[in-house]
C-alpha cells in the first residue's frame, strides 16, 4: 500500500499532471491564462514557475494561448501527430464548442484515416456543467457529445484519487482523451497515493462506490457525489442502494453496470446535462436493451432541466439535479 495523503480534487489533478510532465519531456500544457495567471480554476497554479519562466514571452511546456480555442486545439493536435503529448485546458468545456470541428473532425479521426500509422496522444480537459451563476453560455455539459464520437475516450472521474489516476492514464494513452471535470468537484477532498508515481486508474472501468442490493444509482462526475448522498438517505428508509460510478463514458463499462442492475433489478441514471438527449439516455437505453428480463421497474433517468442555464441562483439550483430529484426518481422505481 502506498502512503496516502488528503488532497482536493484540484490538487490531485495537478499532481497527476506534474508527475506526467516530470516523467515525460514530451508532455506539455497549453490553454488560456494557465501560466502567468495560474489558471482560472487554479488547476495549474504554480506550474509556469515550475516548468517555465514567468517573464518569458512564451513557455513551450506551459503555453499561455490567445482566446482561440479552435486554433490551439488544432495546434495541439498537430503537435500530437508529430509525437508530443499535449494536455489542453479549456477554461470551461463550454468554450470547447468552438474547437469541436478540430476535435471531432481532426483529432478523433487521425489514427483511423491514416489506417493506424499516425497516433494522436492528447488530452483535452476542463470543467463542464454549471459552476455558480455563469448563466446560459458558460454552463454547458459537453461529455455526451464527446462520448458519441468514435476515436475519442471520455473520462469523468468523481473523486480526487480517480482524477489523479485517470489524468495519468489519459496522458499515457496513445489516443485522444477528454477528461471532463466539474467546477463543483474541485474543492472536494479525498485520499490519494502520495509518492507512487506509477499509480494509475484504468480507462474503461466503472467503480462500485457503495454496494447495495435494492437499486443501482448510476452516474458520473459530480452526480456520483449526489448519488452517494442519496444512498445514505435511502439507507435510513431501509433501501440499500448501490452507487455505480461510471467514470469512463467511452469506453463504457457495461459489464459492471449490468452486473449491478442484474443484482438490484432497478436503476436510476443520473446526469447533470440536459435530460433530453444527454449521455444518460445512452446508458439507460443500453440497460433497457440488455437487462430487460432483470428489470423490476423502468430504468429511470434524472437529468438537468431542458433549459438554457438561468443566472438567478434560485432558478439555477432548480435546473441542476440534486438529492431530492434523485430521491423522487428512486421512489418512482418502487
Amino acid at each position, binding site marked *: 500500500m502506498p502512503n496516502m495523503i488528503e488532497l482536493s480534487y484540484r490538487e490531485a489533478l495537478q499532481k497527476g499532471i506534474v508527475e506526467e510532465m516530470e516523467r515525460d519531456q514530451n508532455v506539455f500544457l497549453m490553454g*488560456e*491564462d494557465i501560466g*502567468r*495567471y*495560474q489558471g*482560472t480554476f487554479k488547476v495549474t497554479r504554480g506550474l509556469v514557475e515550475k516548468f517555465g519562466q514567468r517573464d518569458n*514571452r*512564451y513557455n513551450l511546456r506551459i503555453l*499561455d494561448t*490567445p*482566446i*482561440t480555442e*479552435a*486554433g490551439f486545439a488544432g495546434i495541439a493536435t498537430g503537435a500530437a501527430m508529430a509525437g508530443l503529448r499535449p494536455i489542453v485546458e479549456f477554461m470551461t468545456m*463550454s*468554450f470547447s464548442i*468552438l474547437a469541436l470541428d478540430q476535435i471531432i473532425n481532426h483529432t478523433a479521426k487521425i489514427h483511423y484515416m491514416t489506417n493506424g500509422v499516425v497516433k494522436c496522444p492528447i488530452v483535452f480537459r476542463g470543467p463542464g456543467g454549471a*459552476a*455558480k*451563476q*455563469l*448563466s*446560459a*453560455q*458558460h454552463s454547458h455539459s459537453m461529455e455526451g457529445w464527446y462520448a458519441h464520437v468514435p476515436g475519442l475516450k471520455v473520462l469523468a472521474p468523481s473523486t480526487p484519487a480517480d482524477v489523479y489516476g485517470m489524468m495519468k492514464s489519459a496522458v499515457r494513452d496513445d489516443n485522444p482523451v477528454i477528461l471532463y471535470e466539474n467546477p463543483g468537484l474541485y474543492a472536494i477532498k479525498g485520499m490519494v497515493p502520495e509518492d507512487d508515481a506509477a499509480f494509475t486508474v484504468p480507462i474503461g472501468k466503472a467503480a462500485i462506490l457503495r454496494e447495495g442490493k435494492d437499486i443501482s444509482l448510476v452516474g458520473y462526475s459530480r452526480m456520483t457525489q449526489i448519488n452517494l448522498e442519496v444512498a445514505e438517505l435511502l439507507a435510513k428508509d431501509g433501501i440499500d442502494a448501490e452507487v455505480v460510478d461510471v467514470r469512463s463514458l467511452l469506453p463504457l463499462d457495461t459489464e459492471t453496470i449490468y452486473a449491478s442492475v442484474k443484482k438490484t433489478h432497478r436503476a436510476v441514471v443520473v446526469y447533470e446535462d440536459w*435530460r*433530453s438527449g444527454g449521455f444518460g439516455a445512452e446508458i439507460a437505453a443500453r440497460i433497457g436493451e440488455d437487462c430487460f428480463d432483470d428489470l423490476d421497474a423502468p430504468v429511470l433517468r*434524472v*437529468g*438537468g*432541466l*431542458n*433549459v*438554457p442555464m*438561468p*443566472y*438567478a*441562483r*434560485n*432558478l439555477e439550483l*432548480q*435546473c441542476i*439535479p440534486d438529492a431530492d*430529484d434523485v430521491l*423522487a*426518481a428512486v421512489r418512482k422505481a418502487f
Partner: protein
Amino acid sequence: MSNLTEEFPSISSNDLKQYLREMLFIRRFEEQCNIAYRAGLAGGYMHTYIGMEALASGWINSIRKGYDYVITAYRDHAHALLLGTDAVAVMAEIIGRKGGTAGGKGGSMHIYDPENGFYGGWGIVGGHVPLGAGLAYAARYRNEDRVVLNFMGDGAANQGVVYETLNMASLYDLPCIFIVENNEFAMGTRLEYHAADPELWKRGQPYNMKCERVDGMDVIQMRKDAQRIIDWVRENQKPYWVEVMTYRYAGHGAADNDRQLYRTKEEEEVAWARDPIARLRKYLIENNIMSEEAIEAVEAETEAEALAVLEKAKESPFPDTDEVYDNIYTDMTPEKGH
C-alpha cells in the same frame, strides 16, 4: 472651449456636461455593482468598465440612439446605460431579479434592450461579432441608413470568426463599425502576449476596409472621431475597423483579485493618470464650463443616484421558479422535469 465649438460645432457645453454626468454615473453605478458582488447579491462573472467610460460615451453619443444598433460582449453595463436603459433594470439584472432587463435570467454579462437598440450583452469571446454584422445586414437589406456599433475586446480580436466576419462585411457592404476596446489585457494576458502584432488597427487592412487607431481616454476626441467614422459609414455603406486605446483599471472581473499576476502597481498608477473622468473634469474647469463646486455637486448626485438604484433593484423579487421554462420558445415550453 471656443476652440472646440468652432472646430466641432455639434458638441455644445451642455453636451460636455452631460458626458461628465453620464461617465460619473457609470463609474458610481459600477462601484455599486462591486459592492453588490462582495455582498453576495450578484454572482457569476461580472465585469466593470471602470477606466473605459469615455470610449462607450464617445461612440454612443454619436449615433442615433434607438435607431442605430449596438452590440458588445459581457462588459456591457456602460453601453446599456448610455443608450438609455433604465438603470434600475440593469442593476436588477446584475443581481438576478425579476425586474431585470432579462428577468434575472441573464445577469451582468447579458443585458439587452432592443427597444433602445441594444442587442447585448454576450459571453463567448468574439462570438457576437458576426451577429453585429448580421444586424447591419438587416439594415442593408431593408435599405435603411442605420449603422451598427460592434464592440469587442482586444482578446476577442484574435478569434477567427472576427475575420470571417470582416471579409463578409466588406464583401456585402455592411454598415458595421468594428470597435476594438483595446484595454491592454485579455483577462490575465497582456496584449503583447496574446497578439503577435499589438497594433490591432492593422487587422482590418487585408479586407479592403478603412482602419485606424484612435484614443479612447479623451471623451472629446473620442466623440469627434466617432462622429466622423459613423458619418462616413452611414454615408458610404461600408464597414470600418477601429482600434480604440483604453485601459482597464479594475481586475478582469469581480472575481479577479490578484492583478499583480499580470501587472505592477506602478503600471496601474501611470494608467490612472489617464483617467478619462479626471481628464474631462479638468477640461471643464480649465475652460470655465463648470466650476469645481458644480462638478462636486454632480459627483454627489450621481453617487446618491447609484446608491438609490441598488436599493431600488433590491426591492425586485427573485424570479418565480415556474418561470424557468418561459421564453425558451415563442410558442411552446420544452419538456419539463428532471
